[in-house]
């Protein structure tokens, strides 16, 4: 199977620089401080944020006196992939992804604003179709914005690959992951262009790295634009219903 046809189309009919369709929603739960849902193609992820709050239980021994303690848990629903998973969380792979998500988000969160506090981030993959890590970071970012947690900017992740040894592809689907080819995952802060995390699944020639990396960063910028639109729409809608918290003389809101 070829990753790219002669006409320059990918297996699912996208062009090399096209993202999958992104749908997102903020504020899906009432109980959590912040929550979000994102669909990137067929990859579907829910994220919730609790806190910053007083550390309770085990975390009390690990509090930092100058910054927030950030906990992150990645879990993948047992029905999310083609083959049924045995453990939704806690296996080696999930733990590794949890650590990576935490690393990407801590680069963006202004933890110094919340000393002695704890911030819990939970992400759950409902359907896995490639780019799970990327969708998780993006969903967690939206949930953090929804929770009103101070951030330097959005943390956005995107993957890229190389087809036919020369053409860089953005936003890799599960099929493309399986067909072979290297997979470069980048979590970045797209406004300043900083890279928070970079991971490579296979070796490829270092000559190709700049263009693959550039394609992934471009993808991050495109996703950032979509996330930002969602945030604006959400803030505008909720803010308008509450009259922006403004009051007139008689104490009537509107």
């Amino acid at each position, binding site marked *: 199977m070829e990753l790219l046809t002669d006409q320059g189309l990918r297996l699912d009919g996208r062009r090399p620089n096209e993202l999958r369709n992104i749908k997102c929603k903020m504020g899906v739960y009432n109980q959590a401080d912040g929550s979000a849902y994102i669909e990137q193609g067929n990859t579907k992820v829910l994220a919730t944020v609790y806190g910053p709050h*007083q550390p309770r239980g085990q975390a009390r021994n690990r509090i930092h006196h100058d910054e927030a303690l950030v906990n992150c848990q990645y879990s993948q629903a047992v029905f999310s992939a083609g083959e049924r998973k045995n453990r939704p969380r806690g296996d080696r792979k999930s733990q590794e992804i949890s650590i990576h998500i935490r690393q990407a988000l801590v680069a963006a969160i202004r933890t110094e604003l919340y*000393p002695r506090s704890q911030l819990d981030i939970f992400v759950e993959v409902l359907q896995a179709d490639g780019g799970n890590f990327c969708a998780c970071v993006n969903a967690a970012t939206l949930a953090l914005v929804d*929770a*009103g947690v*101070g*951030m330097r900017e959005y943390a956005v992740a995107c993957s890229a690959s190389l087809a036919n040894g020369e053409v860089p592809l953005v936003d890799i689907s599960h099929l493309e992951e399986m067909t072979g080819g290297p997979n470069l995952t980048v979590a970045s802060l797209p406004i300043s262009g900083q890279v928070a995390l970079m991971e490579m699944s296979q070796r490829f020639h270092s000559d190709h790295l700049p263009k693959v990396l550039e394609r992934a960063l471009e993808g991050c910028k495109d996703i950032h634009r979509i996330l930002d639109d969602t945030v604006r729409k959400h803030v505008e809608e909720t803010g*308008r219903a509450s009259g922006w918290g403004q009051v007139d003389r008689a104490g009537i*809101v509107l």
Partner: protein
Amino acid sequence: MQNIKIRLASERVSTSLTFGEEGAPQLFTPGETITDNQRVMSGHGTYMDEENKDVLKASVAGTIERVNQLICVRPIKCRYMGEIGDVVVGRITEVQQKRWKVDTNARLDSVLLISSVNLPGGELRRRSAEDEQMMRKYLQEGDLVSAEVQSVFSDGSLSLHTRSLKYGKLSQGVLVKVPPSLILRRKNHFHNLLCGASVILGNNGLVWIYPTSPEDDSGVGGFTQNLEQVIDKEDRERIARLRNCVLAITASKLMLFDSSIQYAFEESLNYSIKELLTPEVMLDVAFRTRHRLQAYKDS
């Protein structure tokens, strides 16, 4: 058979009350540049860029507030940020030496010092070691209290006091949790509603609904908890209806204050209490409440 309703996610009712209305204040999202004017000061929700020290950027998503040179961005929803004089409702989480720790839905637990409560028996009484040993008698873990914010510590945690008869331990009633940003700041947060129940609208987003006591001034203060008193059925139904009304108007992000709750209660009378939990009815109650608030404003 229990009557359980299950619906598809695609049939979810949108709680939005605004239909294509125009005009909004300027919004900022995290990382967006607010200004590169060097004379401004950075307030809450903003930060100075690390690379270019002149550029002021937003760190939360929300509206901008400007007081002379100070620029703040206020998020649409966040944890409770206490201010001196706020009325709060909280739950005791810990009893320590000379203080109680209170969970007030803020970033850190608040502190209620034994010296800032009115102990039973006389206003001005020396606090002895005996009192410290009796602390768990007055308030124990899990008790709900209403209190006022006395001061804010440098790490952002709050110090509370209950030095007034209206504050103190809460006994019988219903607690509702709503986003703190939906509580309107007013002079008075204790209301005896016309419909026959009372509410405490805590600035921290905890709303306490309780039956109006027959003696007017006694209020809810002190450390006595009367659990023997039987609340009759009508009062309970009124409280349950109020609770559902509060949930309905906050689901549609309307601000909570005495008249909005009263209007919602009146508009909800067309429905049974149980029906008020279905999304369509919640939306209808919120819509009618908003309409009445608007009509009141226009008149």
